Every structure is written in C-alpha cells, then in structure tokens.
C-alpha cells in the first residue's frame, strides 16, 4: 500500500512538473521570442486589468481551444486520425518515468528513491519510448489524408531515422564511461570529481558525445533548426495541419512536453542531473543549517533587488495607459516583497540550528531544486536556439545527419574505448 502511494505521489509530482513547465514554456516562448526580436509580445489578455506580463494568455488559449469546433476532414482515416494526438501526447509523458529528479527522501524512516521507475535498462527505455512518438506524427500525417500532412509525416520519419542513430551512438560513449544503463547510477557517477576538482559530468568526460546528443535531441523534439516536419513556410503546418480544437492542443502540448523531456535528458545524462557541483549529498547534510541560511539570505537579497527594479517601473510608467494597467508594476513590487518577507520569516525560525531529520529534507530540497533549475535552463535553451537559428534545408539536414554526425559518433566510441583502455 505504501509503495503504491509512493509511486502515485511521484507520478503526480512528475506530471504536475511537466504540465506547469508546459504552461511556463509556452509563455516563455512567446515572450522570449518577442524580446529577442525587439517586440513586446502578448500583452492583451487580462484579468481585471492585470496582465501579468502575458501569463494570462495561456488561460485564454486553453479556453479558446476547448470551445473551438473540432473540425475533421471527411477524407481522414477516422481511427488513426483520432488516435495520433493521444499517442504523441501519452508517449511524451511516459518517458519521464525513468528520469531521477532527486536522490532520496526519508519518509517515516524509509528511504524513498526519487524516480518513478528505477529501470536497469533506463536509457534503452528512453530511446524506445521516445521514438514511439514518431509513430504518432507519421500516423497523423498519413491519416489526415492531405498532401502537406503526408509530407510532414515523411519528413518526420526520415529525420527520426537519421538522428535516432546518432543519438544512440552518442549515448554509447556515455554508457561506456559510466558502465551502466541505469539512469540513477549514471547520475550518482556524475556526483564524483575528476582529478579532484572537476565534476565528473557527462559533458566533461564526453564533450563530443554531448554535442552530438544535444543536436540529436533537437532533431528528435522537432524543434528549430530541425522542425522540418512542420515547416510552416513549405508545408503549411506539416503533420498537424488538419487538426483543430483540443486535438491540436494535444500536439501543441506534446511538443513542449517533448522539450521538457529533452531538457531533462540533457540535464540528467550530461549535466549531473540533481547533483550540485562540489556539493555532494553528505556535505549538504552536514552543513544543512548553514546552506539553508545562505539560501534564504540570497532569496531575500534577490527579491528585494527585483522589487526595486519593479519600483523603478512604477515611477516611470505612472500614467502610461491611464487605467488599471498602470498599477501592474505595483503588483510586482508587492509579490517580490512578499517573497522577501517569507524568506525573512524563514530566517526567524533559526534555520542554522536544524536537526538531522531536517538536514535530510534540506538536502533533498536542494537537489530537487537543482534538477528543476537545470531543467528550466535547458528548456529555455530550446526556445533560445529556436529564435536564433533558421531552419535547415532538407539536404543539409541529411548531410549533417549521415555524413557528419554519424562518422563523428562512431569516432567518439572508438576514442572513448581507446582512452578507457589506456587510463
């Protein structure tokens, strides 16, 4: 019974994390794209005149998509047409099962590993399930029975075949270094230090493998510069052209869920997962009080700084619009001051004198937080790259995949093997 509850709790945490990330990423994509291109971005949806810098837009989007008419072309293949979005979306969620999002948490004297399913073939599971998503894309492209969707599906297949191989080859090097397929082992291995000062992260021991992997992940998630399956300029919207309403929303959410899984994989395999560099878990537990105090002080300082930035905006934009929108920066000041106050309240509880039970909790909190921070950064990297690079041409894509990255992947394995045999 306890085991079931435990797994359920972890599933709920993971799904909540993904869903929140999806909403935040949609916002970050729009606002980030706008700011990168010197635009202001979405700022019209408002609740009572408050726009929260465009954060109200996802709510408006959901409402719009839910109440939109679900138009189905008469020439579709009904079963596959309806199945495809569910495959894409559920596959995107399933992959997270093996990602460790923390070391362990002691609940009622029992150590609970913070991973939903600690499979001993973790990486193979990821590769297997992630490539299932392509079936959804191809199915959508074929079942809609439209030239453009069909082309999108074909492009997705060709791209997946090319880059899945590179991904597997890049991971081979990592598997050799950590001699395990289990993701928890790999993350634990990345907590060590190389030559006593460098964290033994995947990116340090496998730099070329990392570059190959990150490029392959971008191709796998269908994100720029590899978003040929939906290439708007050539094939309208690609494989999801004939979908509307919530079925389209599923594709849309799946794209962002895939981004989050891609970011989680990059963070887990090459950037130490939940490991904090130079701060292994025993050290955190030993100095939990000190670290927590530093953390709270940092939160206070950072929030006060951001509150001051908002205060500057309050003064500058006093009469910009002449309605409720002028009061938005005031909300910002209040929010960040409230956060600073909460942190001060935490300091008042004397965190430096925390007990050993609390130390375990603090260590878990720090590591889970580290994982989320890495996740957010790499998810942002997807958006950042999308608004920096143009899309590859189809022949360039194939050239890069087969004639550049495949040989490099093979060479990486050979070099890794030679170095491992020598050292």
């Amino acid at each position: 019974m306890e085991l079931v509850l435990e797994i359920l709790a972890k599933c709920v945490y993971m799904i909540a994390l993904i869903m929140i990330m999806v909403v935040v990423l949609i916002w970050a994509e729009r606002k980030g794209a706008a700011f990168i291109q010197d635009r202001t971005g979405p700022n019209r949806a408002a609740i009572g005149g408050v726009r929260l810098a465009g954060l109200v837009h996802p709510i408006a989007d959901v409402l719009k998509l839910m109440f939109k008419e679900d138009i189905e072309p008469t020439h579709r293949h009904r079963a596959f047409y309806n199945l495809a979005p569910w495959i894409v979306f559920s596959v995107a969620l399933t992959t997270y099962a093996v990602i460790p999002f923390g070391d362990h948490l002691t609940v009622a004297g029992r150590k609970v590993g913070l991973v939903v399913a600690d499979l001993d073939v973790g990486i193979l599971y990821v590769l297997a399930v992630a490539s299932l998503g392509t079936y959804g894309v191809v199915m959508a492209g074929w079942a809609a029975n439209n030239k453009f969707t069909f082309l999108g599906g074909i492009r997705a297949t060709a791209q997946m075949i090319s880059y899945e191989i590179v991904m597997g080859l890049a991971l081979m090097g990592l598997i050799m270094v950590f001699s395990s397929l289990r993701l928890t082992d790999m993350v634990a291995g990345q907590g060590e230090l190389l030559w006593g000062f460098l964290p033994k992260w995947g990116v340090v021991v496998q730099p070329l493998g990392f570059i190959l992997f990150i490029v392959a992940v971008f191709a796998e998630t269908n994100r720029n510069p590899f978003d040929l399956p939906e290439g708007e300029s050539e094939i309208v919207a690609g494989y999801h052209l004939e979908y509307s309403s919530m079925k389209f929303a599923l594709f849309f959410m799946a794209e962002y869920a895939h981004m989050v899984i891609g970011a989680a994989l990059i963070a887990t395999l090459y950037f130490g997962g939940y490991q904090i560099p130079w701060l292994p878990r025993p050290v955190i537990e030993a100095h939990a009080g000190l670290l927590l105090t530093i953390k709270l002080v940092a939160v206070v300082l950072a929030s006060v700084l951001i509150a001051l930035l908002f205060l500057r905006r309050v003064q500058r934009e006093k009469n910009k619009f002449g309605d409720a929108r002028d009061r938005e920066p005031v909300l910002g000041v209040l929010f960040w001051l409230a956060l600073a106050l909460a942190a001060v309240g935490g300091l008042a509880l004397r965190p430096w004198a925390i007990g050993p039970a609390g130390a375990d909790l603090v260590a878990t909190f720090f590591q889970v937080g580290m994982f989320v921070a890495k996740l957010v950064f790499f998810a942002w990297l997807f958006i950042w790259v999308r608004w920096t690079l143009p899309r590859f041409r189809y022949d360039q894509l194939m050239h890069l995949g087969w004639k550049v990255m495949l040989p490099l992947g093979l060479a990486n394995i050979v070099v890794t093997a030679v170095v491992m045999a020598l050292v």
Partner: protein
Amino acid sequence: MLDAGSVMSFEGLPKGSGDKKLGFRDSIYLWEVVRGLGVTIGHLIHNILHTGEMPTRQYPEEKHVYGERFRGRHRLMQREDGSPRCVACQMCSTYCPADCITIVAAEHPDPAIEKYPASFDIDLLRCVYCGLCEEACPCDAIRLDTGIYEIAADSRASFLVGKEFLLTNDTDGTL
C-alpha cells in the same frame, strides 16, 4: 536566361555574399551558433531592462500621427451658412480613377451659385485615396485632410457615405 552551367555574378553585392564555400569555422556551425545565441540573448536582456525603449506602438491606445500631407478620409467643406461649398460641377467624379464619387446635382435657389449637390456619395471601398478629386475641385469643396486612416465597418453598405456624413466631418474614426 541562365543556362545550367553559368555562374551567377555577385559583383557589387556586400563582401561575403553569394554561394561561396564555407570555411572550416563556419562549416562546423558551432562557433557561429554560439555567436548567434550571444546576439539574441543580448537583445533579450536589453529589452527586459529597457521595456520602455521598445519600438512597439500599443496601437489602439497610441495612434500613429501621419504628416500633414497624408490623405485620409474625405470631408466636404462648408460655406459660412453651413451648406456645402460644392457646386456639383462633376469635375471630381469625372476625374476619379476609381469612379467612386456619385453626385446628383440640383438647382440652387441662389442664382449666383447655380447648382448644389442634392446627394454626394463616396464609396470608401472603391476609393484609392489618390487625392485627384482634391486637385480637380475648382472651389476647394472636397479635402482628404482629416488624417483618419481607420476606415472600418461591419457591412459593405456602411462604406457608402453620403453628403451629411462628409459634411459633419467626424474625426472619431467610426463610419
């Protein structure tokens, strides 16, 4: 016509344009990708810290003001007594390249004026805002100087504006 074997000339274009072969640094992409990421993040950070300097105009609240010579929606000029200055000479409707002006003339009670427009209709959907009617008018009766560029309505019929509308010289932008 270019045949298959001919080479395009890039003379006169900026240095580096054209289908030249990439050097090693460009062909591995990575360096240029990182440089590009630097450019975009620079814009992002600058725009977060200086939101006020963004060139975006918050349109319905902030409207663009065109120059004085901008040709906006038409208006009919009035005499001191409020009657139209137009003498229904049909010069503007004759000149109009879009054929959007329809004038029905009637006899004016004042013998010094001869005629006046019983109706003066402009189809704003056909008008190309060229201003030739302004040029043609012998008595400065029609002008396009309102500066109104938001010409929108719910039905085609409401774009057909008449004498009363043009004389009242509304500037609120609604039809």
